[in-house]
């Protein structure tokens, strides 16, 4: 398994990245940590003309607080965010989900934005971004825009990013007082891709449940103040509406059942965490 030929460009500035992306018209692939792109190159599922390395651009490094938002630059590795001293205090849900992303050996290289760019339907970081109503910052030569996670993930490894756009950063809202968070996933082994992953954020008004690994993208639903059997019915309806995938690892029915079980567990746990 060896990649096909490509030119390699090591960009020193954002302007250079935007120029290359604009000039190559979709034939350029951005490389950051490479944990998703390199296997795709090696298996020749991706055959870009140019691989564009963005890891040495100073503007893309670093985690910052922008008001009530955690802004994570495109060059921030998953291990760096997991080790950020303020992580648990600022956003408990991220502290719960990040240890489930790949293995320590891949988190040391893989970037937070790279996982969002790939948009694997069972990946934890896109799921967390959606659960928290985060945003993706995209930029081109011409300007910048922000896209809500809800609109960004459009299908199996398909996103709202245009060919000439760079994911410059992603934005996670900070946790608010009175919120409770929970996360669980089911996989054969820790570190495997989740068969189903569920994240919940509870506040005074209700619970937002985000589900990954089931449909072709992560899906979220907000349930307003449901108790007991009402919750069961609502989860049942939600599980049925999801267009559950069927593959080697699990049937669609099995995935829906996991949504009912894990969904209830995380909702109850998130509510308990509020108290």
């Amino acid at each position, binding site marked *: 398994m060896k990649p096909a*030929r490509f*030119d*390699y460009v090591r960009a020193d500035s954002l302007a250079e990245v935007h120029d290359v992306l604009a000039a190559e018209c979709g034939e350029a692939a951005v490389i950051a940590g490479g*944990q998703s792109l390199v*296997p795709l190159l090696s298996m020749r599922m991706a055959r870009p003309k140019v691989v564009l390395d963005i890891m040495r651009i100073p503007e893309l490094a670093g985690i910052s607080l922008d008001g009530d938002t955690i802004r994570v630059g495109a060059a921030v590795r998953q291990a760096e965010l997991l080790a950020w001293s303020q992580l648990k205090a600022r956003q408990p849900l991220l502290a719960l989900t990040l240890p489930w992303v790949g*293995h*320590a*050996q*891949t988190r040391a290289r893989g970037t937070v934005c790279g996982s969002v760019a790939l948009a694997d339907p069972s990946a934890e970081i896109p799921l967390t971004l959606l659960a928290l109503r985060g945003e993706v910052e995209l930029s081109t030569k011409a300007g910048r825009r922000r896209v809500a996670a809800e609109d960004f993930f459009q299908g199996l490894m398909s996103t709202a990013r245009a060919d000439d756009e760079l994911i410059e950063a992603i934005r996670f809202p900070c946790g608010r007082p009175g919120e409770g968070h929970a996360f669980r996933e089911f996989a054969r082994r820790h*570190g495997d891709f989740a068969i189903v992953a569920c994240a919940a954020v509870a506040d005074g008004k209700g619970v937002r449940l985000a589900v990954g690994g089931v449909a072709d993208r992560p899906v979220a639903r907000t349930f307003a103040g449901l108790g007991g059997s009402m919750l069961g019915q609502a989860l049942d309806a939600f599980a049925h509406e999801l267009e559950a995938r069927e593959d080697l690892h699990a049937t669609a029915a099995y995935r829906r059942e996991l949504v009912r079980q894990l969904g209830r567990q995380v909702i109850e746990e998130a509510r308990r965490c509020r108290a």
Partner: protein
Amino acid sequence: MPRLSADQRHCVRLTLNGRAVEGEAEPRMLLTDFLRHVIGATGTHVGCEHGVCGACTIEIDGALARACLTLAVQADGTSVRTVEGLAPEPGRLSVLQAAFRRHHALQCGFCTPGILMSLDHYLRSHPLPTETDVREFLGGHLCRCTGYVPIIAAALDAAERLRNGETDA
């Protein structure tokens, strides 16, 4: 902004186990192949070549990395540590390597270089791991011979010896 063209070889310089090395690589060359075929450092093994098995795990600038998920040109200018850098001198083993030998933590040895690199890194930052911690950490590696039990025993033994002041030097 350097642009390295696809059909030419380009000079890659890096520090390998404390020694400056250089060689030529096409942009598409993986770091595993660069280390093994260009530099001749064959200690790093190539298993699945898509980041799953962990046999090629090395350190790049002090952080763990799968060499098969890294392009050689990405590693230009970095400091790389491989299994060849573990033993303090020829003929002597590091504390971790010696524990592997005592506990029969390898049979065919194919996965061993990657596991040694991972555990060496891990034990330096986690001197007092539990068995569960080590099992969890080993999740990033596949071994098809040992069943992992002797590897875990070796890691815990090495951790204890390192805590008691035994050193690699």
